[in-house]
C-alpha cells in the first residue's frame, strides 16, 4: 500500500502527452478481432470473483487490518459474485458494479429483484424473521445485529487487528 502524501502525489503527477493525432483505432472487421481474440476470450472466461475485502487503517500509531469475508446463500445455494466492502462500510458486488449498498441484505434483495428469473419462485424463509416486513428496514436491536443484519456489518466478517 502506497503511503505517499497527497502533496507528494500532486508534485509527481505526469504531464500529458500533447500529441495531436487520434491514437484510437476503430476497426470492426473480423480480421482485426481475430488478432486479439484470445486476449479478450481469456478475460471473459477467466473472470473470478473473490468475496473478500481487506481494509487497512493507521490510527494513533497502530496499523489496523480488517478482513471481511462474505458467505451468502440463497435458498441454500452458495452465492459467490464478488462481494466487497468499502472503508465507509458500503457493500458492493461485481454483478451490479455501480451500486453501494448500505448492507449485504439490501444487496441480496436487489440481486433477487434484478435477476428474478434466476432464483425461481421464493419458498419462504422457514419461519425465520428476516427483519423486513415489506416497508423499509427497521432495526430489531442486538439480536438482529448478531444475525448479521446491521448496517456496516458483514454477514460473516472475521476481523482481525494486527499489531
Amino acid at each position, binding site marked *: *500500500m*502506497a*503511503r*505517499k502524501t*497527497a502533496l507528494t*502525489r*500532486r508534485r*509527481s*503527477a*505526469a*504531464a*500529458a*502527452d*500533447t500529441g*495531436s*493525432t*487520434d*491514437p*484510437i*483505432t*476503430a476497426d*470492426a*472487421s*473480423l480480421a*482485426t*478481432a481475430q488478432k*486479439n*481474440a484470445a*486476449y*479478450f*476470450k*481469456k*478475460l*471473459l*472466461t477467466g*473472470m473470478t*470473483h473473490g468475496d473478500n475485502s481487506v*481494509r*487497512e487503517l493507521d490510527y494513533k500509531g497502530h496499523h489496523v487490518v480488517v478482513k471481511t469475508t462474505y458467505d451468502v446463500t440463497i435458498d441454500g445455494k452458495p*452465492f459467490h*459474485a*464478488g462481494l466487497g466492502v*468499502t*472503508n*465507509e462500510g*458500503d457493500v458492493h458486488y*461485481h*454483478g*451490479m*458494479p*455501480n*451500486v*453501494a*449498498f448500505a448492507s449485504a441484505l*439490501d444487496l441480496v*434483495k*436487489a440481486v433477487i*429483484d*434484478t*435477476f428474478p428469473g434466476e432464483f425461481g419462485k421464493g419458498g419462504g424463509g422457514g419461519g425465520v424473521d428476516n427483519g423486513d416486513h415489506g416497508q423499509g428496514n427497521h432495526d430489531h436491536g442486538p439480536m438482529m445485529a448478531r444475525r448479521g443484519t446491521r448496517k456496516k456489518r458483514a454477514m460473516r466478517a472475521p476481523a482481525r487487528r494486527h499489531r
Partner: protein
Amino acid sequence: MPVRRNILNDAASRQKYVQGALALKAQFTGITTQSLGIPGPNRPVSTWDRFVAWHSAVMGTAHSSPLFLPWHRIMLRTLERLIQQAINDPNFGLPYWDWAADGQLTRPAQLTSAIWNDNCMGSAASAPGPFTLAAFPLRLASNNSGMLVQVNRALQRTRGAGVQGISNPSLPKKASTAAALTALPYDASPWNRNAVGFRNRVEGWNPSNDLHNLVHIWVGGDMLPATSPNDPVFYLNHCNEDRIWEAWMTRNGRTYLPIATTTGAQAAHRIDTPIQSPFGGSATPAQVLNLSSVYTYDTLSV
C-alpha cells in the same frame, strides 16, 4: 472535427446517434459467441454487442480504478468512429446527457425530461422508443454472478425507481458536478473505491451513489449489471463523464495518476500501460489525456 453536443439541444446529434446505434446493432462482421467464449449456441455477435462483451470483460480493471476515465474515453471514441463509418458522417460527434441539469428538476419532472421522448431514448420500461425488440434485441446480458449469458429479449429500464435501500433516487445535482471539479488529485492510493480524489468522486463512490454511479442506478434495469452498454443511455452518461473530466483537466491540468514510478499501484493502472481494444490497437492513458484536436465539446460548463 466532431463536436459533442447536448442531446437535448441538438436534434441532428440525437437523430444520428439513434441511427448509429441501430446500425451497429444490425452490423455483423463475423464475430460469434463462440469466438468470445460465451456459453450457449454459437451465434453472430453484432458490433454494438461486442462493446457489451468488452465492457463486461474489463470490469475489474476499468472500474473503481484510475483507468475508469481513460478506458471509457477509448471506448467512447471507438464507438464514435464506428458510428461515423456506419452513417457515413466523419464529423458525427457523440451527444452527451447533462443529467445534472435534469437533476435540478423535481423527481416527477426528471421522468418527463425530453431525453425520454420516443424520438430519443424512449420512456417505456421495456423496448423504449426506437429500441424495439425487433430493431434492438438484447442478446448478451449478465447473470446474477456477473457472467455473460445469451438472451433474446427487449431492453429494460426502471427509471427513477432505484434499488433496495436507494428507493426513488434523484438524478445527480449540479452541486455535485461543481464539487467534483475541485477534487484533487486525479486519483490516490489505494486506487480503488476508497480513494480520495477526482476519479473516485466522479465515478460515484466518494460520496457513494453519486454522479456516474447514480445515473446507472436511476436508469436501472439493464443499466445495473456489467452489461450496461446494452442501453444507449450508457454512452450518453459516459460522454457526460468524459466532458466533466475534460472540464476538470482544463481547470486543473492534464495530469494522471499513477505515473510509471508510483509505488503501490498496479502496473495495469499506470499512465504508460497500453489499454487493449478489440477494435484495433492499444492506447495508453497518457495518449488520451489530450484529445482536444480530435473532438471537442460544445461547452465545458458542467
